[in-house]
């Protein structure tokens, strides 16, 4: 027999692509974190525990740690109750207008935490129109009650109840309907079924959701920055921020240690979440069609009214308060037909230089990050879903880390990695827009990746193999077969990345420089500088963009797998 063509298997299109992807993920996700750990235990390259010891012996670190844990635990419990009840009600019962309700309820998740905090400040202070109307406003001149531990807990709970809702809803949807029906058939009341069957089976989902909320609260910067810093109630992220912005890169080893600190606590939470989600195994093989809704009967209207009232109060009222502030000429002036003005919007869009730059910067950065992340995701998910291997499993975990860990950890890691001039290129990207872009790519990669992965899972691999048999090489298959089919999920992922980047503050608060302000940064500095009306105006603009984009997905949501868009029921 003649010898066939020998193919060493190297340097084919798909293999080159895979190698590039691996390098890219290593550079984006692994390198910064490795650099951070290195700096914490061996600052400047030599092993030393001095920085560790300094942090250990510093009372303020312990206070910040205590504050972080207090607020995170408090908010987690509150969010579990609120999000849990809503998830049960929305998923199991015959409530009407579920899509609209879910959209409103999940909104805090896509609106920036600092914007929600700012909005709540507008309706809770001495000059709150609402409280004045009810006669409940604190006397003029007193401190807004939200500037406190309790305020932070409340806002974190508002922000992250949707996470509990989403985790629990995913668990409930995977619950085989037979288990519920068997309970009902054996004579148990609906309430008994919820108590004795559904909730016990949901324990892994609940614990996973709890761990996720805890880690998110722990890493949250926007809420304690707006509500804690004024009253000098510092959490670990805000402590890191203050140290770094007060003293500059000189304290890098110290903040590296603090980042490791908060990162380690977060990892415990991430592990709990991972273990629990893996436990979610019902050993019943069904293509679970959602269980038939529990009929609420005459309770339906009261339940609907209660849920809507609470959600409108928690989400919509504060935003209206924010809008009112954005429309008055000066903070504290009551809004009416005479006082209403658009001058704040004109000010932030046209007059204020930093704010004008920030609009452009945030738009551009978010759009570019969304495009690049989507490109990487379409390729990476191809290998993750269809070419399983141990290396790729590790790679997907690596890609998750920058998002799972608190944002400050990634920020500090990026500063450490990019402070010195880059090798070969010879210049530093610190204090440029590029460090922000890289941090965005690293942090938001999974947001684009997850929808695309679920898209691939829904696709029959045979359609790619059929193209392969037809003679099409990897890149050609990618462009002519795979891309058209994953386009909807890729678009959904791109929108998620854009929205998150557009609303983000944690990364840019630590990485911005003059000229590279983002919207989050200008809202923060307006508020700190007492320009509340300008802060409100910028916030309203971001909310409009955010909700507009979220609504735009209604145009193609029917092409998406369930669960890709958090705001869709």
């Amino acid at each position, binding site marked *: 027999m003649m010898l*066939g063509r020998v193919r060493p298997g190297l340097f084919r299109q798909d293999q080159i692509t895979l190698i590039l992807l691996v390098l890219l993920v290593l550079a984006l996700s692994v390198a910064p974190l490795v650099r951070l750990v290195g700096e914490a235990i061996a600052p400047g390259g030599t092993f030393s525990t001095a920085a560790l010891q300094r942090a250990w012996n510093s009372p303020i670190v312990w206070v910040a740690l205590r504050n972080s844990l207090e607020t995170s635990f408090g908010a987690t419990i509150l969010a579990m109750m609120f999000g849990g009840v809503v998830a049960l009600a929305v998923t199991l019962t015959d409530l009407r207008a579920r899509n609209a309700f879910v959209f409103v309820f999940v909104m805090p998740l896509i609106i920036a935490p600092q914007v929600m905090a700012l909005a709540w400040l507008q309706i809770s202070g001495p000059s709150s129109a609402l409280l004045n109307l009810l006669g409940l406003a604190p006397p003029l001149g007193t401190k807004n009650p939200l500037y406190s531990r309790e305020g932070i807990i409340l806002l974190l709970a508002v922000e992250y109840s949707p996470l509990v809702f989403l985790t629990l809803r995913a668990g409930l949807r995977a619950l085989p309907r037979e288990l519920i029906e068997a309970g009902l058939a054996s004579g148990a009341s609906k309430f008994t079924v919820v108590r004795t069957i559904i909730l016990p089976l949901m324990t892994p989902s609940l614990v996973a959701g709890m761990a996720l909320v805890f880690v998110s609260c722990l890493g949250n910067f926007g809420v304690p920055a707006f509500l804690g810093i004024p009253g000098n109630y510092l959490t670990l992220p805000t402590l890191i921020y203050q140290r770094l912005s007060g003293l500059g890169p000189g304290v890098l080893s110290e903040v590296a240690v603090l980042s490791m600190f908060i990162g380690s606590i977060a990892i415990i939470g991430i592990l709990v979440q991972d273990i629990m989600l893996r436990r979610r195994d019902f050993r019943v093989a069904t293509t679970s069609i959602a269980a038939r809704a529990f009929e609420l009967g005459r309770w339906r209207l009261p339940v609907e009214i209660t849920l809507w009232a609470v959600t409108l109060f928690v989400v919509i009222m504060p935003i209206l308060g924010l809008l009112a502030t954005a429309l008055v000429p000066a903070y504290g002036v009551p809004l009416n037909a005479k006082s209403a003005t658009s001058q704040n919007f004109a000010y932030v869009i046209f007059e204020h230089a930093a704010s004008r730059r920030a609009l452009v910067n945030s738009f551009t950065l978010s759009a570019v990050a969304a495009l690049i992340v989507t490109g990487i995701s379409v390729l990476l998910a191809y290998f993750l879903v269809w070419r399983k291997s141990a290396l790729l499993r590790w790679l997907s975990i690596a890609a998750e880390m920058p998002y799972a860990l608190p944002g400050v950890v990634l920020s500090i890691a990026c500063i450490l990695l990019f402070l010195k001039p880059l090798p070969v290129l010879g210049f530093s990207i610190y204090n440029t827009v590029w460090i922000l872009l890289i941090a965005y790519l690293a942090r938001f990669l999974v947001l684009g990746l997850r929808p695309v992965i679920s898209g691939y899972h829904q696709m029959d691999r045979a*359609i790619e*193999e*059929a193209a392969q*048999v037809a003679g099409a090489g990897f890149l050609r298959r990618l462009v002519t077969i795979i891309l058209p*089919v994953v386009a909807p999920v890729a678009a959904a992922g791109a929108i998620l990345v854009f929205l998150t980047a557009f609303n983000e503050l944690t990364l840019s608060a630590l990485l911005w420089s003059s000229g590279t302000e983002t919207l989050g940064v200008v809202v923060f500095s307006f508020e700190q500088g007492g320009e509340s009306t300008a802060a409100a105006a910028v916030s309203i603009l971001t909310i409009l963009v955010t909700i507009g984009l979220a609504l735009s997905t209604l145009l193609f949501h029917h092409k998406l797998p369930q669960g890709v868009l958090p705001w869709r029921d």
Partner: protein
Amino acid sequence: MARLTIEALSKYFGDQAALKNVSMQVEDGEFVAVLGPSGCGKTTMLRLVAGFDAVSEGKIAIGDRIVSGPGTHLPPEERRMGIVFQSYALWPHMDVEENVAYALKVQKVATVERAARVARALETVGLTSFRNRRPASLSGGQRQRVALARCLAMQPEIVLLDEPLANLDVHLRASMEDEFATFHKRTGTTMFYITHDQAEAMALADRIAVMDHGRILQFAPPSQLYREPANETVARFIGAGMILPGKLAGEPANGRVAVDILGHRAVIRCGPDHGAQGPVKICVRAQDLAVDRQASDPLSARLRRLVYQGGHFQADLLLENAENLPLALTLPEPCEVAPGDLLPIVLRDGWVVPQTDVLA
């Protein structure tokens, strides 16, 4: 030349062997079916032949060219095979015509010829009027026809089919079977057809490879599989064969030999080289057995159940002796026996199973 040669092929997933030392040769233009129960390694073999997976051991050649082997792996896109997938694998974002034309575009076939070949392929499967439809708006049978047309237009030397009828209604299967047979006759393409349905394999294939547990048990034309199973497993699998214990009771001559089955004497078929004396296994089928009240030394079996099958009955019996073997035979209507009766049974035909069993 599109002879497909599979030599000493093995495939391991971890330490589990899905294929063990499989060899077979499919001649140019031959229609070969691979038949076996679910999980026996059929799809694994097809994916190795197509080039989707790398072989663990052994080699695969098309004509004289080794496409898979130690250190050699020609990727699927360069093998020029046609594949009809069980799930059809039509591209949802292209209409019927674009689906059929895709391979030709990839292979840079000139526009005029491409259009002609696509039109011819669509006409062959009777889908010309559906050429601008998307797959989503076609029925299962129509989708399978598009998949076939896609193959047809490519003019491959070998077509691989992985249970192409498994997702279709029973009444559609017959017409698609016909379609595949026509395709084969018209093109003379080598066909490698995977199925778990013996009726399908028998109806279509020139030769059938019976597989079990990652091995080929027998590779032969359908009638030989049925009449002369090479081992007990094939005998039981094909045509619901029954295995009876017996002893050779004479010298084989002209492919026939006298046997003694639990005291009943009969002359049945055997292989030419069957010389051994002593205990043998005998394969019989329902239509080889008959009730004979005149017989001098019949097998005595008790009727357990009669199942009416329209025009005749299937009778389930138990042999009345220590072996307690179940037997099945057909009885014409009307039938004057009842469950519980003792029936005298004789063998009209049978086959002495060669003693070597691959699995042993």
